[in-house]
């Protein structure tokens, strides 16, 4: 399913039957038909074409946000776990502080201060999701540090950077991949939420969240405007959740129950 959505996003120019921005007064809120499979919106734009192009914003937001979280969270978490002591205490308290702010509220606040746009929404979501990766990486490093192969690498006189990158990092990648996959699901919902509130992708560019925001005003006249974008978010998030669950079962034997 993830591959399907990726394919749809990549092939959007060829798959979309209409221009996602082209308005047509004769098709305003047109019900699903042979020419508009998913119906048309309040400006007569083809809902299916907007869904197909909207997949780009959602997938991009999910992947870029989580890349930001990984790029920030993994090095900081490794530093805290490997160095320990005062630095660990300092980083842990800062992480606690970020975790104390609810994810969505922090993302909204960051997006509000940075200004509404898709790229700022991705930064806001990425930064808000970072503490989870700091905490996970730190915990994994702490347990890997106590392993014999790390002690052996240290006894052989390897420098710290080499031990951290060559010996510890490859052994903590699996849980990070699982968490990253589940975090993409959360980031897709967060981007849709920010776009729904007007803080993500700006109109007229198609985004599933902003399509739902408009759709709520026409719910009694054109329910198809709400059903398809919501279903798309649901299926994309579900596919990343299933992928994350599957990866966890495959990579972590403790989670089989």
């Amino acid at each position: 399913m993830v591959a399907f959505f990726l394919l749809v996003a990549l092939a959007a120019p060829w798959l979309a039957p209409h221009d996602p921005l082209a308005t047509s007064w004769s098709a305003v809120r047109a019900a699903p038909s042979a020419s508009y499979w998913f119906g048309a919106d309040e400006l007569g734009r083809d809902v299916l074409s907007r869904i197909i192009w909207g997949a780009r914003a959602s997938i991009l937001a999910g992947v870029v946000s989580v890349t930001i979280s990984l790029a920030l969270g993994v090095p900081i978490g490794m530093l805290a776990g490997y160095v320990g002591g005062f630095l660990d205490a300092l980083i842990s308290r800062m992480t606690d502080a970020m975790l104390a702010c609810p994810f969505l509220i922090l993302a909204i606040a960051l997006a509000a201060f940075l200004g509404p746009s898709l790229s700022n929404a991705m930064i806001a979501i990425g930064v808000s999701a970072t503490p989870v990766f700091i905490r996970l990486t730190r915990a994994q490093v702490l347990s890997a540090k106590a392993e014999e192969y790390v002690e052996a690498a240290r006894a052989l006189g390897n420098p710290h950077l080499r031990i951290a990158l060559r010996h510890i990092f490859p052994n903590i990648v699996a849980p990070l991949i699982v968490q990253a996959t589940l975090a993409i699901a959360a980031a897709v919902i967060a981007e849709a939420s920010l776009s729904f509130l007007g803080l993500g992708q700006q109109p007229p560019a198609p985004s599933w969240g902003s399509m739902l925001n408009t759709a709520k005003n026409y719910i009694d006249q054109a329910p198809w405007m709400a059903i398809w974008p919501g279903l798309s978010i649901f299926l994309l998030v579900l596919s990343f959740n299933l992928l994350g669950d599957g990866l966890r079962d495959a990579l972590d034997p403790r989670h089989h129950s």
Partner: protein
Amino acid sequence: MGRFLLRRLAQIVPTLFFVSVLIFGLQQLLPGDPAIAMAGEERDPETIRYLREKFHLDEPLPARYGYWLSGVVRGDLGESVRIQRPVTDLILEKLPVTLQLATMAMLLALLIGVTAGVISAVKKDTWLDYAANVFALWGLSTPNFWLGILLILLFAVNLGWLPASGYVSPFEDLKGNLSAMIMPAFVLGNAFAAVLMRHTRSAMLQVLSSDYVRTARAKGLNERGVILKHALRNALIPVITLGALSFGELLGGTVLTETIFSIPGFGKLIVDAVFNRDYSVVQGVVLLTATVYIALNLLADIAYFLVNPRMRV
């Protein structure tokens, strides 16, 4: 207990300090001159001068943080630039509405999530277990603003059973209040019910295979007694801790739920503040939710300490 409390409080002080730095730091993200950004599109020179003076924008950053923090400690979260009212008053006015919504959502989530989790664990590998797992995946993957729109379409537009939006105070009309809040509470609690279901299931599976449950069964206790009296009571300890910790997330979720259902709580307050560039209000709401989270975290730890004798050793 005293030493445990002191240690936890000692951990909270630096966390609160960093929360305050984080929230104060948000203002520094404003591109360009914060006074111009806060003044809005009119850019009235009088307003800009007032804002610059009000937020001590001509002074160095540490001094500005000091002014802001001393206000926060005294309960002064600043003033709404748009409504010209203290942020603390605005939040206190909206808080009861949001608390009612979050509490109803939490109760619904506990009812649905714990029940589904217990059934799923007791009937492991049957269709009931699979159905509960599908329900959990549905809950975790459904954006709550979409669920809200679908429920409005079904229960308000098509069936006409519930109001589509709006809020009535419970002191004016309790029945009207409950019928206006039940749909938003379900929408808000839906994802949390899924999380609770998964945790309850895994805690119950662990407890059901433990020695004391086997002993209770061997003593001839009926299955219902074993599940409700012995297994569930112990499995619920981590679930309740999770519940306390997740209340903060529920408060975060109210932003979307209150926007869809036009409920005048503090979720809607932050959204309106974002669009009115009322940054003091945004900071105030983030600060309040973070403080509530930290307080609940502490309470959960104390509760865990009290119910779990192993921690007292």
